[in-house]
């Protein structure tokens, strides 16, 4: 799966969590822009893990702040 496919699939996974309909760009942050709290993060990460059949440990999550970084990380994980 190329990066664009990963991007598209994550965009659709975000929708139910994007309560305020924030426009998603590469630099959109989960904490500040999307206002995800820790429970939302857990549910959202679980949705991504199930979709791509990967693990994103909390250690890895700590390095991911923006949508673009998440797409990169998932792209790399599902290729490996």
């Amino acid at each position, binding site marked *: 799966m190329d990066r664009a496919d990963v991007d598209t699939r994550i965009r659709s996974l975000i929708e139910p969590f994007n309560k305020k309909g924030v426009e998603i760009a590469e630099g959109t942050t989960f904490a500040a822009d999307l206002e995800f*709290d*820790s*429970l939302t993060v*857990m*549910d959202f990460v*679980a949705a991504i*893990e*199930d979709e791509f*059949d*990967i*693990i994103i*440990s*909390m*250690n*890895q999550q700590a390095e991911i702040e923006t949508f673009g970084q998440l797409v990169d990380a998932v792209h790399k994980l599902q290729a490996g």
Partner: protein
Amino acid sequence: MSATDLFSKFDEMIALRESILATGVEDPYSLVMEKVLSPTRAICNGRDTILLGTYNYMGMTFDDDVIAAGKQAYDEFGAGTTGSRVLNGTFHHHRDVEAALREFYAMDHAMVFSTGYQANLGIISTIAGKGDYIVLDIDSHASIWDGCAMGKAEVVPFKHNDIEAMDKRLGRIPAGAGKLVVLEGVYSMLGDVAPLAEMVAVAKRHGAMVLVDEAHSMGFIGEHGRGVCEAAGVIDQVDFIIGTFSKSVGTVGGFCVSNHPKFEVLRLVCRPYVFTAALPPAVMASSAASIRKLMHGSNKRAHLWENSRTLHRGLRALGFQLGTAEPESAIIAVVMPDLERGAMMWEALLKEGLYVNLARPPATPANMTLLRCSLCAEHSAEQVQTILGMFERAGRATAII
């Protein structure tokens, strides 16, 4: 206000605390017990108060034998150890309390830490290191999270008590990586119990080691009081049980019991065990006496369960929303609509002469505000009725029911 400094990160917490106190309620986090009259009664902030938030499940704090054992150790061995367990801090009593734990759990090894927090911190951080994976429940206690962080393992949480979510995460761990599953028998916020029979089976199918924190079940869950893993019939599959002396045992300290053949090496490599002073001999002597008495506490156990059922039924009948549909442990959590009204209700109860724990985010699941009640085997049936009357009056005064 000072300029930005290292304390600026606490501004939100300071503001939250000030906003609660500004409503005029008593500070829920600076209660003082001026006199403790029994396991269930104290003078708190000048009032004669029934204690319903102490985790003193079996009421051992005032047990005659427990106190006598401590006094004797005080007289004969002095006030403190002034040293680490691996240097000058292991007295006869530390060995004896570890023997009592081996008897209680029928396990080969027992290791005593200075607190329950340190037991989780030490065991988890030592056995799961860089490159290993820890799969744990999202509602785990702070001491478990801190142990995960200290060991630098890859940390993978799953939704509370969700067997399938746990199974999936275990299945995705890279082949060859070390795996530790961390669970609790009773979760202390809502007082709910984990489905350990299923969860331990899943963990074992994936070849993971299993650690279960049984802090809130010792002495009254399972045939021998060994906890939820005993009641679920999987205690022989559990690699490590973590427990504490500061709840049912009635003193202070933490421990790990295990049948692992190499367990004793942990005494040399576990930093929260090595680099701290051992508990005072009086605490160890009292703890050993208490643990041995808990092995024969079936009458007290039955009364504790009766209290839990009566309080749960009564609160539900009054219209309170509770953390569990049925009483699953000796913790009954009463769900409050928000923090402000939770604090009001907490204060109204204190003025009635009842102490419960006010639990608030972020320590609580789903950002709930809870009034957490923990029952004691020494609460009389009359006291439980008195408690229900206090809840009714306070609940109506604050319009929560």
